[in-house]
């Protein structure tokens, strides 16, 4: 799969594209052409808009929490009531013993939508915390981890791929074995092992100190385990590009290795990197959700969509919204990124589009 994708992202020459698009590309840069194609892909743009809306909503979490819901994401409201339709409603249904008679209780209030003045729009959890508030703050954490890990992972993978693909030889051998080493472990298991170990004591080595519970832990763990997924196909592309005439020309003009790698090769793989980056955000959000669900990602009481699903699991029968709502948030976010990522790929890689149209 890596080998196939390594050839998918080569930008065509202007002549080839002109042939495919009827000569309308003369004088336009590849990026302008890609933008033109992307503009026509309304589905991709719609899903981009959806992603932007999700990001904006999450970014407004503090505003919603303090101005509308009047609570903090981690503040419990056990034993409290809230006003609805002029009445005080218990946030958690009351149960317990009256003498020797027992009545089951502890069911949190369900989604109120807008009937409670913006409080408990998506209901409460078993601590009386506002699910909508935690969903938004959880989204912030999930997106931070997803995007942050995608950035770090992509950056490291591209640098390693450039070094490996350009220099070849023993540099290539060492970096390739490093990729093999990571790939030798099932990705999720490796992430769970690292996440669990680090979430207990944090990381305090090499002059770096990361406390347990820090978002940096899932971010770095996910970045690390996914490096080969970008690094390998990139390396393949660079191995191919290294033999191209423009590299030879740059070498003949006396350009040094850094200049060729970052000035000549990198721009030619930029489109691939961009598509990978978009798609790996979605993958990382899913990975974060999985890790957090298993307790190896974002640590409570901080919410993330994964921890929210985990917290909802014990109430799936009486309070299904606790798990379903963050699940929907993950689906929408991942879907939006994937559809947009595919659209971006189609825009940047017209050949792939032609193949799909067949």
């Amino acid at each position, binding site marked *: 799969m890596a080998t196939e994708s390594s050839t*998918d992202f080569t930008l065509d020459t202007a002549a080839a594209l002109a042939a495919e698009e009827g000569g309308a590309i003369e004088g336009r840069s590849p990026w302008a052409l890609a933008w033109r194609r992307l503009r026509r892909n309304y589905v991709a743009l719609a899903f981009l808009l959806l992603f932007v809306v999700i990001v904006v909503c999450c970014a407004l979490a503090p505003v919603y929490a303090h101005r509308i819901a009047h609570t903090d994401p981690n503040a419990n409201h056990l034993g409290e009531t809230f006003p609805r339709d002029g009445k005080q409603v218990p946030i958690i249904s009351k149960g317990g013993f009256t003498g020797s008679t027992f009545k089951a209780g502890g069911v949190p209030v369900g989604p109120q939508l807008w009937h409670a003045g913006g409080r408990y729009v998506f209901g409460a959890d078993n601590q009386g915390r506002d699910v909508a508030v935690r969903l938004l703050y959880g989204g912030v954490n999930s997106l931070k981890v997803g995007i942050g890990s995608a950035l770090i992972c992509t950056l490291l993978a591209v640098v390693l791929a450039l070094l490996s693909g350009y220099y070849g030889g023993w540099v290539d051998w060492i970096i390739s074995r490093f990729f093999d080493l990571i790939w030798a472990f099932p990705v999720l298991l490796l992430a769970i092992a690292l996440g669990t170990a680090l979430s207990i004591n944090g990381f305090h080595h090499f002059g770096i100190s990361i406390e347990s519970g820090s978002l940096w832990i899932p971010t770095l763990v996910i970045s690390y385990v996914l490096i080969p997924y970008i690094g390998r*196909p990139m390396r393949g592309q660079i191995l191919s590009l290294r033999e191209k005439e423009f590299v030879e020309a740059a070498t003949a003009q006396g350009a040094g290795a850094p200049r060729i790698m970052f000035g000549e090769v990198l721009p030619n793989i930029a489109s691939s990197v961009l598509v990978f980056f978009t798609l790996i955000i979605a993958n990382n959000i*899913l990975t974060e959700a999985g890790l957090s669900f298993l307790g190896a990602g974002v640590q409570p009481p901080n919410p993330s969509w994964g921890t929210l699903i985990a917290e909802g699991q014990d109430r799936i029968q009486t309070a299904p919204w606790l798990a379903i709502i963050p699940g929907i948030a*993950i689906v929408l976010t991942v879907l939006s990124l994937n559809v947009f990522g595919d659209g971006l790929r189609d825009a940047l890689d017209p050949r792939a589009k032609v193949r799909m149209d067949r």
Partner: protein
Amino acid sequence: MFIRKKWIRLFGLGLVTVALALLAAGCGGSKKSSSSDTTSNASSGSSSGKTYPLLRVTWDAPDYMDPALAYTVAAWQLNWYVYEGLLGYKHESGAAGQTLVPYLAKSMPTVSADGKDLKFQLRDNLKYSDGTPVKASDFRASIERLYKVDSPGVGFFSAIQGADQFSTTKKGHITGIVTNDSTGSIEVKLAHPEGDILYILATQFASILPAKTPASDQSTKGIPSTGPYMVQKYVPSRSFVLVRNPHYNNQIPTMPSGNPDKVTGTIITDPVAAYQSVLGGKSDYDFQPIPNDRLGEAQNKYKDQLRIYTAANTYYYFLNNKLAPFNNIKARQAVEWGIDRNAIINGVYGGLGRPTENFLPPDYQQYQKISDYHYDLAKAKQLAKASGTTGQTVDVYGPNEDPSKASTEYLASQLTKLGWKPKLHLLSHQVYFTTIGNQATKAQAGFTDWYQDYPHPVDWFDVLLNGNRITQTHNNNYGNVDVKAVNDQIEKLKKVTKLDTATNNSWAKVDKDLIVTYATTVPYMNRSATDFFSPQVDMSCYSFHVLGQWDFGVSCMK
């Protein structure tokens, strides 16, 4: 990887996410712990005489089945009918179940006037399940084996003369245990009087095993037993089978001989799966507590098959009395006032519990209800502010599984409201108590609970809150509670062998001093739990024992 087959991948991603949500219903789990009685109409603990061929149970995972190592309710509840000691408890519900009776001993021991010498006589013609006779020297060998296998119960026997020395050398014999195989006499000499020694001799750790039993974990190999049943098979984390002891011959008339001929157990630690196992007809009994989520359903639809009991337990938050901010009494009092006990029980435990401010559970005759703290957040904030410690970071520890996790989160949330900056550390159950019991962890506050080993106040105050017993590692006094006046009182009381009114009042004062006068610890709940049965089980035989929990030996079928 991310480029091709995009729609398949999109659907896959969606399905995985939805699956995460749906899988949640079938995952997770909490652990049941111990026992006592309450709302059940418990029948007599004596055998009903209604024998039947097979009892299928769903059980929690025992830590070990070797009685020298086992220290969980799941193991003790089974071993109760397998490995017996000199003494045991009456098989009856309610307070009567706390009564000690002779098991392998012919009668209760003769105790010297100074309380330091106990003389037992073995019953005649006792046999192990392999047909070999039970010898008096087996008792000494069994106690010595505890030290050889590093049993968690060795601490209970330190009052026996020579036990401490044997614990270091592990050679020779414990000088304080003198036995005579020909007469069947056993003499236990104590270095000093121990008020709870008879209860200690009734624990599973004091079970009599053949002297030749290897000094290593024998859980899966099976040890010849003296009780009505023997372990035919035990596969850790999977299953067990108990069958009748062929050489039992009703040799312990003070305990039931057991109704089921065979008990097959499936080990399921997930409460949802365990509950479903009974609903699906695969099991007759669910050991696990019914999940809060299903409790209403169980109560409404299967009321006759459900029993709810409140065990002799206390759930409490420890506050590290030696570290700031909780080395300040006002800070500790702030937490006492700032915890809404009813709200925790209702929200976190689905109502399955009773609020308490006492450290000692209400079943005890030494219990005198404490009612000094009522949830008052404003007062708690004042006290916190007066302590001058607000704004400090507090490392709060708890297990990473609900409901304990949620209870810990509640504590952290309340500390935030009171002005501190809690930092939550949630750990796996497997390492949690070892971690907080290590002074190097410097846990400042956190979740903990305690279920009695035996019904005596020493098992609470001496083990958990006596400052003289604070250790560097494996410390049970998680809050490093160390009040000299109270320590002295505990040391004095633990030597009193007779629990008369004056002694009981003194124990009650220890409770009040620790919780009210010094606000050392924050008890909040006596947790209740459930026993759930299939419709085939005759609930008129249901009996709940203060230590053994559901008395499966006297169960019967319709």
